[in-house]
C-alpha cells in the first residue's frame, strides 16, 4: 500500500531558472500550449486516510509533456480518458511542479471528476493541455510574501523551486485539513513557511490578523505579495492590499469548461485600474488574461 506523506520525491529536479536567467520571466515569455496524451505514472496519497480507508489528497505523477517552458502560476487542463462521455469537461489545475522527466499535478478530491482521478491506475490515459494562462510575477530582489489558502499552496511549489533567490521569499499558509495533506515539505525545503490551521471558530480571526500583519510588513518594504486560495480568502487579501497599498497578485480559480478562451465561463470583471481603457469595468477571461491578476485590476 501507498504510504501517506507530505512531500513528493524531487530527485532529479532542476530549478527552472538559474539566477542569470531571471530576465526571461520579466520578458513574460509565453510557451505555446500543446495537447498531450500521457499515461498516469503514479498516484501518491497525502495526509491521513478517512474512516473507510480513503484518501482525499494526491500527487499525480505524469510524464513531462513536451513543453518548452512554463511559468509558476500557469495551469493545465487535465482529462482522464476514463471520464468517457459522462464527464465532458477537463479539470483545471495549477501546475505544481515539473522535473526533467515528470509533471506533478496535486489535487484534492472534491467532486465527481477528482473522485475518478483518485482511482487512476498506472498506465491509464490522461489528456493534458497546457501550459495555460499567465503565471505569477517574479521579482528576484523584492521581498516576496506568498499567501496560500488550502489547495492554493499548489502553484507555490513550482514557484519557490524556480525562484532565483528563494531567501527573499516567505510563506503564510492557512488551512483546515491536517498539514500533512498538503505538499508543504516541498516548499519548506526552500523557504520559511508559517502555517495556521483553522479547526475551531475564532481561529480564522487569528489567521486574518496575521495575514494583515505580514502584508503590512511586506508593503512597507515595497515587496511583492502573491496569493492563491478560495474566493473569500482572496477577497480578504484584496481588501488588505488596497488598505495597505501592497503590490499584490491573486490567482483566481473560476469555473471553466475549456481553459483556452472559448467557453466564456471563467470571466471576471475588471476595475478602473485595468491597463487597457476599453476593457475597464468589462469582462476578461481568467483562463487567458489570468488566472493571475493584479489585485487592484479586478473586482471580486
Amino acid at each position, binding site marked *: 500500500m501507498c504510504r501517506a506523506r507530505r512531500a513528493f520525491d524531487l530527485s532529479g529536479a532542476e530549478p527552472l531558472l538559474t539566477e542569470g536567467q531571471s530576465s526571461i520571466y520579466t520578458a513574460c515569455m509565453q510557451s*505555446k*500550449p*500543446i*495537447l498531450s496524451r500521457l499515461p498516469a505514472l503514479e498516484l501518491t496519497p497525502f495526509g491521513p486516510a478517512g474512516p473507510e480507508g480513503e484518501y482525499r489528497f494526491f500527487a499525480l505523477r505524469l510524464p513531462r509533456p513536451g513543453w518548452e517552458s512554463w511559468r509558476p502560476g500557469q495551469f493545465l487542463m487535465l*482529462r482522464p480518458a476514463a471520464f468517457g*462521455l*459522462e*464527464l*465532458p*469537461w*477537463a479539470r483545471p489545475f495549477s501546475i505544481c511542479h515539473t522535473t526533467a522527466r515528470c509533471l506533478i499535478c496535486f489535487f484534492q478530491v472534491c467532486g465527481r471528476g477528482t473522485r475518478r482521478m483518485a482511482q487512476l491506475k498506472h498506465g491509464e490515459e490522461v*489528456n493534458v*493541455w497546457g501550459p495555460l494562462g499567465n503565471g505569477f510575477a517574479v521579482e528576484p530582489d523584492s521581498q516576496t510574501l506568498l499567501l496560500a489558502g488550502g489547495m492554493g499552496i499548489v502553484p507555490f511549489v513550482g514557484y519557490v523551486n524556480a525562484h532565483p533567490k528563494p531567501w527573499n521569499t516567505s510563506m503564510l499558509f492557512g488551512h483546515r485539513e491536517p498539514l500533512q495533506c498538503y505538499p508543504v515539505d516541498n516548499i519548506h525545503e526552500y523557504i520559511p513557511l508559517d502555517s495556521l490551521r483553522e479547526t475551531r471558530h475564532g481561529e480564522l480571526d487569528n489567521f486574518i490578523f496575521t495575514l494583515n500583519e505580514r502584508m503590512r510588513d511586506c508593503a512597507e518594504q515595497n515587496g511583492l505579495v502573491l496569493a492563491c486560495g478560495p474566493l473569500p480568502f482572496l477577497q480578504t487579501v484584496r481588501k488588505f492590499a488596497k488598505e495597505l497599498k501592497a503590490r499584490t497578485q491573486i490567482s483566481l480559480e*473560476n*469555473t*471553466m*469548461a*475549456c481553459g*483556452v*478562451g*472559448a*467557453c*466564456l*465561463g471563467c*470571466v471576471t470583471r475588471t476595475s478602473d485600474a485595468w491597463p487597457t481603457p476599453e476593457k475597464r469595468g*468589462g*469582462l476578461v477571461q481568467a483562463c487567458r488574461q489570468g488566472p493571475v491578476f493584479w489585485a487592484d485590476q479586478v473586482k471580486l
Partner: protein
Amino acid sequence: MDISVTLRGQTHDLALKNPVLTASGTFGCGLEFAPYGDLKSLGGIVVKGISLLPREGNPCPRVVETAAGMLNAVGLQNDGVEDFCAHKLPSLPWRDTPIIANIYAASADEFADLAARLNVEDGVAALEINVSCPNVAKGGVLFGQDPTLAAAVTSAVRKAAPRKHVMVKLSPNVTDIALMAKSVEEAGADSVSCINTLLGMAVDLRLRRPKLANVLGGLSGPAIKPVALRCVWQIVQAVHIPVVGVGGIVNAHDALEFILAGAHAVQIGSGNFMRPDCAFAVAAQLSAACEEIGITSMEELRGTLQNGSALQCKHTATA
C-alpha cells in the same frame, strides 16, 4: 478519398473541403484553437455569435457540467461586429476555409443591419442566423419558436446580405421543428443547422439554489445527440435545402450517423471542450471512418437510413 461536400442553397452554394464545421460559441473566433490543430483542415469555422454592438452577457456562474453534457447561459457575450471585422476576421484563414458568422439581434431590422455589415466582408463566406438562443429573453426564444417571426428574420437577412450563403440555426425547443425548417426555407434560407441547445436547468440541493445565475441555460453535449439526430431526420424529410447536424458529436462515427440521417455536414460543439483538438480529429478521421463502413463519398451514405430496426434489416438481407 474525396470527402468534400457542397451545401447547395437556393441563392448561394457553400463548398466545403470536408463536412466538419465548428459550432458557434464553442470555438471562440477560431484562433483560440490554433495551437491544437490546423484551422485550414476544417470544413468551416462557425464563429462565436456576433451582435451589432458589444454585449456583456449574463452574470456568472454561466456554465455548469451535467451528466454527459453541460448547461450554458453565457448570454452571447461578444465584442460586437466592428471588433470582429477589424481584429478577428483578418487573422483567420478565410481564403482557405469558409468562415461562417453566427449572428444575433433583437429585431428583424437589427438582423438586417448586421447582415448588411457582414455582406461587404470578403472573409465571411456565410451567415448563420441565431434564431434560437434560449438565453436572451428579448429576442432568440421568440424568433426561434414562431415560424412567422423566424421567416421574417430569414427574409430580412437574405435581402440584406445578397452575397452570402444564409444558414438558419434552429431551436429544438419547439413542438414541430420541421415546420420551422419549412418556414425558413420558404423565406429564402440556403441551409439550416440544427440543433441549438435544449432549454434546461440544474440545481444545488445543499444550497437550494440554481447552479446558473440565469437559472435556465442551454443543454449541449453527448446527452443531446439523440434529440439532434431526431431533429435532423425530421427536417430532412420536410425541406429541400441542406441540413447541418449539430448536437453531441465527438468523433467521426457520430458525424457519419448524422450524414446517414440525411445531414450534408455537421458541427462540433461541446466536444471542443472535451479535447481542444476534437474538431480537427473528427475531420482527420472521417476518411478512415468512411472506408471502415465501406463508402467512398458522403453522397453514398447521406440519407440512406433504412426503415425499421437494424435487426429486421439484417434478417431481410439474409432472407
